[in-house]
Protein backbone atom coordinates (compact mmCIF):
# COMPACT_ATOMS: atom_id res chain seq x y z
CA UNK A 1 0.00 0.00 0.00
CA UNK A 2 1.43 3.42 -0.94
CA UNK A 3 2.34 5.72 1.91
CA UNK A 4 0.99 8.85 0.25
CA UNK A 5 -2.32 9.19 -1.50
CA UNK A 6 -3.67 11.84 -3.82
CA UNK A 7 -6.77 13.80 -2.93
CA UNK A 8 -7.41 16.24 -5.80
CA UNK A 9 -10.48 17.75 -4.14
CA UNK A 10 -8.24 19.29 -1.48
CA UNK A 11 -5.43 20.36 -3.75
CA UNK A 12 -6.40 24.00 -4.22
CA UNK A 13 -6.92 24.70 -0.51
CA UNK A 14 -3.80 22.84 0.51
CA UNK A 15 -1.27 23.64 -2.20
CA UNK A 16 -2.39 26.59 -4.33
CA UNK A 17 -0.50 29.18 -2.24
CA UNK A 18 2.62 27.06 -2.09
CA UNK A 19 2.71 26.45 -5.83
CA UNK A 20 1.75 30.05 -6.56
CA UNK A 21 4.69 31.34 -4.52
CA UNK A 22 7.06 28.99 -6.27
CA UNK A 23 5.78 30.10 -9.67
CA UNK A 24 5.51 33.85 -9.15
CA UNK A 25 9.15 34.20 -8.12
CA UNK A 26 10.11 32.59 -11.41
CA UNK A 27 7.71 34.19 -13.86
CA UNK A 28 7.10 37.48 -12.09
CA UNK A 29 3.51 37.79 -13.29
CA UNK A 30 0.40 37.00 -11.27
CA UNK A 31 -1.73 35.89 -14.15
CA UNK A 32 0.89 33.59 -15.63
CA UNK A 33 1.69 32.17 -12.20
CA UNK A 34 -1.99 31.36 -11.72
CA UNK A 35 -2.19 29.73 -15.14
CA UNK A 36 0.83 27.59 -14.36
CA UNK A 37 -0.73 26.52 -11.07
CA UNK A 38 -3.99 25.50 -12.79
CA UNK A 39 -2.05 23.67 -15.49
CA UNK A 40 -0.10 21.85 -12.79
CA UNK A 41 -3.25 20.64 -11.04
CA UNK A 42 -4.80 19.52 -14.34
CA UNK A 43 -1.63 17.71 -15.38
CA UNK A 44 -1.48 16.10 -11.94
CA UNK A 45 -5.05 14.93 -12.29
CA UNK A 46 -4.39 13.46 -15.72
CA UNK A 47 -1.32 11.60 -14.62
CA UNK A 48 -2.49 10.61 -11.15
CA UNK A 49 -2.21 6.92 -12.09
CA UNK A 50 1.54 7.45 -12.38
CA UNK A 51 1.77 8.59 -8.77
CA UNK A 52 3.59 5.88 -6.85
CA UNK A 53 3.11 7.34 -3.38
CA UNK A 54 6.82 7.53 -2.69
CA UNK A 55 6.90 11.30 -2.51
CA UNK A 56 4.40 13.52 -0.76
CA UNK A 57 1.58 15.06 -2.76
CA UNK A 58 3.27 18.45 -2.53
CA UNK A 59 6.66 17.22 -3.73
CA UNK A 60 4.98 15.50 -6.63
CA UNK A 61 2.97 18.60 -7.60
CA UNK A 62 6.08 20.81 -7.34
CA UNK A 63 7.92 18.48 -9.73
CA UNK A 64 5.11 18.95 -12.25
CA UNK A 65 5.16 22.72 -11.75
CA UNK A 66 8.93 22.81 -12.29
CA UNK A 67 8.43 21.27 -15.70
CA UNK A 68 5.62 23.74 -16.47
CA UNK A 69 7.92 26.66 -15.60
CA UNK A 70 10.66 25.29 -17.88
CA UNK A 71 8.11 24.85 -20.69
CA UNK A 72 6.98 28.43 -20.14
CA UNK A 73 10.56 29.73 -20.46
CA UNK A 74 11.00 27.78 -23.67
CA UNK A 75 7.82 29.26 -25.07
CA UNK A 76 8.85 32.87 -24.34
CA UNK A 77 12.46 32.35 -25.34
CA UNK A 78 12.06 33.76 -28.84
CA UNK A 79 10.27 36.87 -27.52
CA UNK A 80 13.03 37.46 -24.99
CA UNK A 81 15.60 37.31 -27.81
CA UNK A 82 13.79 40.14 -29.57
CA UNK A 83 13.83 42.33 -26.45
CA UNK A 84 17.60 41.95 -26.10
CA UNK A 85 18.14 43.04 -29.68
CA UNK A 86 16.07 46.14 -29.04
CA UNK A 87 18.36 47.23 -26.18
CA UNK A 88 21.35 47.14 -28.54
CA UNK A 89 19.68 49.58 -30.95
CA UNK A 90 19.65 52.38 -28.39
CA UNK A 91 20.31 55.87 -29.87
CA UNK A 92 22.86 57.00 -27.33
CA UNK A 93 25.39 54.21 -26.97
CA UNK A 94 26.74 55.18 -23.54
CA UNK A 95 23.37 55.80 -22.10
CA UNK A 96 22.26 52.41 -23.33
CA UNK A 97 25.17 50.69 -21.65
CA UNK A 98 24.53 52.46 -18.41
CA UNK A 99 20.91 51.41 -18.46
CA UNK A 100 21.84 47.83 -19.09
CA UNK A 101 24.33 47.76 -16.25
CA UNK A 102 21.81 49.30 -13.95
CA UNK A 103 19.23 46.68 -14.85
CA UNK A 104 21.70 43.84 -14.36
CA UNK A 105 22.73 45.14 -10.94
CA UNK A 106 19.15 45.53 -9.74
CA UNK A 107 18.33 42.11 -11.02
CA UNK A 108 21.24 40.44 -9.22
CA UNK A 109 20.46 42.05 -5.93
CA UNK A 110 16.78 41.21 -6.01
CA UNK A 111 17.47 37.69 -7.27
CA UNK A 112 19.76 37.10 -4.31
CA UNK A 113 17.17 38.39 -1.86
CA UNK A 114 14.56 36.29 -3.51
CA UNK A 115 16.55 33.10 -3.19
CA UNK A 116 17.20 33.79 0.47
CA UNK A 117 13.57 34.53 1.14
CA UNK A 118 12.12 31.77 -0.94
CA UNK A 119 13.33 29.02 1.34
CA UNK A 120 11.76 30.80 4.28
CA UNK A 121 8.58 31.52 2.35
CA UNK A 122 8.08 27.91 1.34
CA UNK A 123 8.97 26.74 4.86
CA UNK A 124 6.21 28.93 6.31
CA UNK A 125 3.67 27.65 3.81
CA UNK A 126 4.72 24.06 4.47
CA UNK A 127 4.23 24.58 8.19
CA UNK A 128 0.79 26.06 7.58
CA UNK A 129 -0.16 22.90 5.67
CA UNK A 130 0.18 20.97 8.89
CA UNK A 131 -2.52 22.87 10.76
CA UNK A 132 -6.30 22.76 10.33
CA UNK A 133 -6.98 24.14 6.80
CA UNK A 134 -9.68 26.53 7.99
CA UNK A 135 -7.39 27.90 10.66
CA UNK A 136 -4.62 28.24 8.10
CA UNK A 137 -6.95 30.17 5.77
CA UNK A 138 -8.00 32.50 8.61
CA UNK A 139 -4.39 33.03 9.64
CA UNK A 140 -3.34 33.81 6.06
CA UNK A 141 -6.16 36.28 5.49
CA UNK A 142 -5.37 38.10 8.73
CA UNK A 143 -1.57 37.93 8.60
CA UNK A 144 -0.55 37.77 4.97
CA UNK A 145 -3.35 39.73 3.34
CA UNK A 146 -3.46 42.04 6.36
CA UNK A 147 -7.25 42.01 6.43
CA UNK A 148 -8.86 43.71 9.41
CA UNK A 149 -10.50 41.67 12.13
CA UNK A 150 -14.02 42.56 11.09
CA UNK A 151 -13.48 41.45 7.48
CA UNK A 152 -12.01 38.10 8.55
CA UNK A 153 -14.85 37.52 11.00
CA UNK A 154 -17.44 38.24 8.31
CA UNK A 155 -15.75 36.02 5.76
CA UNK A 156 -15.51 33.03 8.09
CA UNK A 157 -18.59 33.77 10.23
CA UNK A 158 -16.68 33.78 13.51
CA UNK A 159 -16.55 36.15 16.48
CA UNK A 160 -13.48 38.28 17.22
CA UNK A 161 -12.68 36.16 20.27
CA UNK A 162 -12.82 32.99 18.10
CA UNK A 163 -10.51 34.75 15.69
CA UNK A 164 -7.92 35.51 18.34
CA UNK A 165 -8.02 31.96 19.68
CA UNK A 166 -7.42 30.63 16.16
CA UNK A 167 -4.67 33.16 15.48
CA UNK A 168 -2.98 32.23 18.75
CA UNK A 169 -3.04 28.52 17.93
CA UNK A 170 -1.78 29.13 14.43
CA UNK A 171 1.06 31.37 15.62
CA UNK A 172 2.09 28.89 18.30
CA UNK A 173 2.04 26.00 15.82
CA UNK A 174 3.94 28.02 13.26
CA UNK A 175 6.58 29.09 15.77
CA UNK A 176 7.10 25.49 16.89
CA UNK A 177 7.35 24.32 13.30
CA UNK A 178 9.85 27.05 12.33
CA UNK A 179 11.73 27.01 15.60
CA UNK A 180 14.65 24.73 14.80
CA UNK A 181 15.72 26.42 11.65
CA UNK A 182 14.46 29.98 11.70
CA UNK A 183 13.50 31.33 15.10
Amino acid sequence: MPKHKLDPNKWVDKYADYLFNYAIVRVNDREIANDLVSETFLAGLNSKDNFLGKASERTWLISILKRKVIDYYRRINSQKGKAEVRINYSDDENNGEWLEEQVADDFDRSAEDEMENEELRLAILECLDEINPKHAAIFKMKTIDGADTEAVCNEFKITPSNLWVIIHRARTALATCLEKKWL
Partner: protein
Amino acid sequence: MQKPKFFILNCSDAANCCDKKEYNEASIREKTSIIIHNLFCKKCRDYSAKNSKLTQLIKKARIKACTSEEKRDIKEKLKQEISKQGSSSS
Protein backbone atom coordinates in the same frame (compact mmCIF):
# COMPACT_ATOMS: atom_id res chain seq x y z
CA MET B 1 -11.23 38.75 27.42
CA GLN B 2 -12.02 40.84 30.49
CA LYS B 3 -10.71 44.33 30.82
CA PRO B 4 -7.55 44.11 32.85
CA LYS B 5 -7.96 45.56 36.33
CA PHE B 6 -5.07 47.69 37.48
CA PHE B 7 -3.05 46.34 34.57
CA ILE B 8 -3.01 42.83 36.05
CA LEU B 9 -3.38 40.06 33.50
CA ASN B 10 -3.32 36.31 33.72
CA CYS B 11 -1.05 34.48 31.27
CA SER B 12 -3.70 33.62 28.71
CA ASP B 13 -4.93 37.22 28.58
CA ALA B 14 -1.33 38.38 28.31
CA ALA B 15 -0.82 36.05 25.34
CA ASN B 16 -3.98 37.39 23.75
CA CYS B 17 -2.81 41.01 24.15
CA CYS B 18 0.57 40.00 22.80
CA ASP B 19 -1.01 38.54 19.67
CA LYS B 20 -3.12 41.67 19.17
CA LYS B 21 -0.01 43.77 19.52
CA GLU B 22 1.57 41.92 16.58
CA TYR B 23 -1.34 43.11 14.44
CA ASN B 24 -1.29 46.63 15.87
CA GLU B 25 -4.64 46.02 17.49
CA ALA B 26 -3.69 46.29 21.15
CA SER B 27 -4.87 49.35 23.07
CA ILE B 28 -2.44 51.45 25.09
CA ARG B 29 -3.90 49.91 28.22
CA GLU B 30 -3.28 46.41 26.88
CA LYS B 31 0.25 47.25 25.82
CA THR B 32 1.03 48.66 29.26
CA SER B 33 -0.46 45.58 30.91
CA ILE B 34 1.80 43.27 28.91
CA ILE B 35 4.88 45.23 29.87
CA ILE B 36 3.97 44.95 33.54
CA HIS B 37 3.00 41.28 33.27
CA ASN B 38 6.19 40.42 31.41
CA LEU B 39 8.30 41.98 34.14
CA PHE B 40 7.19 39.18 36.43
CA CYS B 41 6.53 36.35 34.02
CA LYS B 42 9.32 34.67 32.07
CA LYS B 43 6.96 32.43 30.13
CA CYS B 44 5.11 35.38 28.64
CA ARG B 45 8.31 37.33 28.14
CA ASP B 46 9.62 34.45 26.02
CA TYR B 47 6.34 34.21 24.17
CA SER B 48 6.38 37.95 23.38
CA ALA B 49 9.92 37.74 22.04
CA LYS B 50 9.20 34.70 19.90
CA ASN B 51 5.95 36.18 18.69
CA SER B 52 7.53 39.39 17.43
CA LYS B 53 10.33 37.40 15.78
CA LEU B 54 7.65 35.40 14.01
CA THR B 55 6.07 38.60 12.71
CA GLN B 56 9.46 39.74 11.38
CA LEU B 57 10.02 36.39 9.66
CA ILE B 58 6.62 36.46 7.99
CA LYS B 59 7.28 40.02 6.78
CA LYS B 60 10.68 39.05 5.49
CA ALA B 61 9.28 36.08 3.59
CA ARG B 62 6.97 38.37 1.61
CA ILE B 63 4.49 35.59 0.97
CA LYS B 64 2.13 36.17 -1.89
CA ALA B 65 -1.17 34.44 -1.42
CA CYS B 66 -3.67 33.67 -4.16
CA THR B 67 -6.82 35.73 -3.76
CA SER B 68 -10.02 33.82 -3.02
CA GLU B 69 -11.27 34.61 -6.54
CA GLU B 70 -8.11 33.18 -8.06
CA LYS B 71 -8.56 30.05 -5.96
CA ARG B 72 -12.18 29.79 -6.96
CA ASP B 73 -11.18 29.93 -10.65
CA ILE B 74 -8.61 27.19 -10.22
CA LYS B 75 -11.06 25.07 -8.22
CA GLU B 76 -13.64 25.47 -10.97
CA LYS B 77 -11.22 24.28 -13.66
CA LEU B 78 -10.15 21.34 -11.55
CA LYS B 79 -13.74 20.39 -10.75
CA GLN B 80 -14.66 20.37 -14.42
CA GLU B 81 -11.73 18.10 -15.17
CA ILE B 82 -12.59 15.76 -12.29
CA SER B 83 -16.17 15.43 -13.47
CA LYS B 84 -14.97 14.86 -17.04
CA GLN B 85 -12.78 12.02 -15.84
CA GLY B 86 -15.55 10.58 -13.72
CA SER B 87 -17.96 10.47 -16.66
CA SER B 88 -15.41 8.98 -19.07
CA SER B 89 -14.43 6.15 -16.74
CA SER B 90 -17.97 5.09 -15.87
